C-alpha cells in the first residue's frame, strides 16, 4: 500500500515536471494550471502517506537519510504550493517539481532503515525535524529565486536578452521572493535549532555539542541572520541578497547530505538507526 501511494506521488511529481517544462517552452497558461493540479494531487497523497506512517509509528519518520529526503520533498512541495497561492512565481515550479521528484526517487532508492534508536522515538523530536525541514524547504525556494534573479539581472545588465528574458518574472518579484522566504525560513530554522538543543539537553545532558551538523547549521544560520539584518538596515537586496541565499543554501546542502556522508558525528543519520 505504502509503495503504491508513493509511486503515484512520484509519478505526479515527474508529471508536473514535464508539464511545467512544456509550460516554460510554449508559455500556455493552461499548462501551468494543469501542473498545479497534478502537483497538488500528488502532494495530498504524499500527506496521506505521511499521516499513515505517523499513525503507525507514533512519530515523524525522519531518522534515515532516505526518510529525511522523503520528508524534505513533502515540505518543499508544500511550501511551494503555499507560495504559489500567496506569491505566484510560475517558473519556480519548473525547478521545484524536478527537485521534489529527484529527492523522492532518492528516498525510494536508499535502503530502508532498521529499527530506530529508542532515543529518537519521540513526538517532541518531530517538532525539531518538521521546523528544520520546513526552514530548509523555504531556503531552497529562496535559492532557486536567487538563481533566477541572477539570470534575469545578468540579461538586464548586459543588455543581451535570451530565451529566459520573457519567461522570467521581474527583478522586483524575484527579490520580493527572497525577502518573503527569508522572513519565513529564518524563524523556522531558529525554531529547529532551539527545539533540537532543548531535546539534546533533555536526553543527552547538553544543549550544544559542536557536532559537524550543528556547527554547519550554525554557520548557515549566521549567514541568513546577516542577510536579514543587512537587508533591513542598509538595504542588501537584489544581486547581493541572491548571492547570500545561494551561499546559505549550499551550506545547508552540505549540512543535510554532506555531513552524513563525509563527516561523522552523533547527529548523522547512520547513528540514528541500529545497524541490522
Amino acid at each position, binding site marked *: 500500500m505504502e509503495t503504491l501511494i508513493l509511486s503515484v506521488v512520484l509519478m505526479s511529481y515527474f508529471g508536473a515536471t514535464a508539464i511545467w517544462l512544456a509550460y516554460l517552452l510554449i508559455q500556455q497558461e493552461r499548462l501551468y494550471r494543469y501542473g498545479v493540479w497534478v502537483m497538488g494531487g500528488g502532494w495530498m497523497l504524499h500527506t496521506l502517506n505521511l499521516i499513515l506512517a505517523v499513525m503507525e509509528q507514533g512519530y515523524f519518520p525522519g531518522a534515515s537519510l532516505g526518510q529525511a529526503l522523503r520528508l524534505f520533498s513533502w515540505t518543499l512541495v508544500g511550501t511551494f504550493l503555499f507560495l504559489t497561492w500567496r506569491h505566484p512565481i510560475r517558473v519556480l515550479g519548473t525547478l521545484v517539481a524536478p527537485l521534489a521528484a529527484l529527492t523522492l526517487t532518492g528516498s525510494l532508492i536508499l535502503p530502508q532503515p532498521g529499527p530506530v534508536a529508542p532515543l529518537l522515538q519521540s513526538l517532541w523530536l518531530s517538532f525539531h525535524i518538521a521546523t528544520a525541514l520546513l526552514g530548509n524547504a523555504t531556503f531552497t525556494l529562496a535559492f532557486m529565486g536567487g538563481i533566477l534573479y541572477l539570470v534575469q539581472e545578468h540579461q538586464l545588465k548586459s543588455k543581451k536578452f535570451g530565451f529566459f528574458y520573457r519567461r522570467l518574472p521581474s527583478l522586483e518579484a524575484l527579490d520580493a521572493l527572497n525577502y518573503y522566504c527569508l522572513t519565513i525560513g529564518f524563524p523556522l530554522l531558529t525554531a529547529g535549532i532551539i527545539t533540537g538543543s532543548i531535546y539534546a539537553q533533555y536526553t543527552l545532558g547538553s544543549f550544544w555539542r559542536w557536532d559537524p551538523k550543528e556547527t554547519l547549521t550554525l554557520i548557515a544560520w549566521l549567514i541568513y541572520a546577516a542577510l536579514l539584518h543587512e537587508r533591513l538596515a542598509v538595504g542588501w537586496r*537584489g544581486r547581493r541578497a541572491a548571492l547570500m541565499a545561494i551561499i546559505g543554501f549550499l551550506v545547508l546542502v552540505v549540512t543535510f547530505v554532506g555531513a552524513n556522508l563525509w563527516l561523522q558525528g552523533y547527529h548523522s543519520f547512520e547513528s540514528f538507526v541500529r545497524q541490522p
Partner: protein
Amino acid sequence: MNLVLLGINHRTAPLEIREKLAGGLQDLSAGYQALRHLAGLKEVLLYSTCNRVEVLFTTADPPKTVPRVQTFLINLADLPTEEQERIMYIHQEGEAVQHLFRVASGLDSMVMGEPQILGQVKEAYRLATQQQATGAILNRLLHKTFFVAKRVRSETGIGCQAVSVSYAAVELARKIFGTLTNKTALLVGAGEMAELAVEHLKRYGVSQIIVANRTLERALKLARRFRGDAISLAELECQLLRIDIMISSTGATEQILTRDQIKKAMRLRKQQPLFLIDIAVPRDLDPEINTLDNVYLYNIDDLQGIIEVNRRYRQQEAVRAERIIAAEALKFLQWRESLAVYPTIIALQKKADQICQHELKKTLSQLGPLTPAQIKSLQVLTQSITHKLLHDPILYMKRNHHPKDTSREINYIRRLFNLDQE
C-alpha cells in the same frame, strides 16, 4: 456574388494622395451614400486610416462595378486617371479575404503587428452596420476577421515586444519593477521621444512625474502637461532619492550625473532599484553607472538595439501569422460556396411547400367533408409530386458541375424558379 477589395495604402501611394483621399472621406456616411448610388454594389464596407483607404464590396458583376468604384475613389482625390493603375490595387475573392485578414492583424501596417488597426476596422464596421451597408456575406466576413486577428495576436508573437524606443523603455521598466504603480519618474530635459516615453510610463501606472529643465519656465510647462512637479537642474542630486525611473534628454555637452553621485544616492536609497534611460546625444549620464548594483542604465543605442531585435522577431512571427490567415481564408471561402448552394435548395423546397399548402387548401374547400385518412392521402400526393419534380434540380446543384463559378449557376437556378421574387 463576388467579393472585391479595392484600395490604396502607404506602399502604393505617397502621403499627399492618401491625405486627399482621407480628406474626401472625412464624412464616411456621405461616402456610403455615394457608393449606394453606384449600380451593381450589394454590400459595402469603407475604411480609411492615415495609411490606407480601402473599399470592400460584393457585386454580381465585377467587370462593370469595379471601374465605377475606382472612379468614385479617383474623384474623391482629384487624381489623374492614369495614376490609378499605379497606386490602386484590386483583390478579388480569396485574395480580398486574405488582404482584409492581413490588414486587421497588423501584417500590412507600416509598423508590423501594430494593434490600432484592428480597432479602426472594428469602428469602420460599426459605422457600416449603422448605415445598413453590409449584408450576410460581409457580416460573416468581418466577424471572421476579428476572430482571425485575435487568433494571430494570441498565437503568434507579432504584437508583443516593443518596436519603438518609448515602449522599449516601458517594457524594461516592467521587467525591473514588475508593476509601475506608485513609481515616480523624472524627466530631465525635453524632446519628443522622452516625452512620449513619459506618457507611456504614465499610462502603465507611474503615479508621479517630476520634470527638471535648465529653464524653470520650460519645466513648469511640461510639469503642467504631465500634472507633475517642476524642479531645477540644481536639485537633481537630492531628487534621486525620490525617484525610480529617470529619463534624461538634455542638450548638455557634459555629463549631468557621475557614477559617484549615483553611488552615494544608492546608499541613501537603501539600494532601491533605479532605472536610468539616457536618450541624449551626447550622453548625459556616465556609462560607468551601469556597473553599480541595482542600477540599470540604458542609452539610445541600447534601446535601438532592442527594438531592432524585436522587429526581426516580429518578422519571423509574421510568417506564422500568414499561415493562420491562409488557412482561415480558405475556410471562409468554403463556407461561402456551401452557403450559395444550400440556401438555394432550401428556398426551392420552401417555395414548393408553399405552393402545395396553398393548392391543397383551395381543393379541400371545394371537395366538402372528407375523412382524416382522405385528407392525409391528398397531402401525401401533393408532396410526393413536388418532391419528385424537384429531385433532379436539387441533385444537379449538389453535384456542383462548375466549382469555379458556382455563383453563376446558382444565379440561373434562382432566376429559373424565380426564387428572389423579381
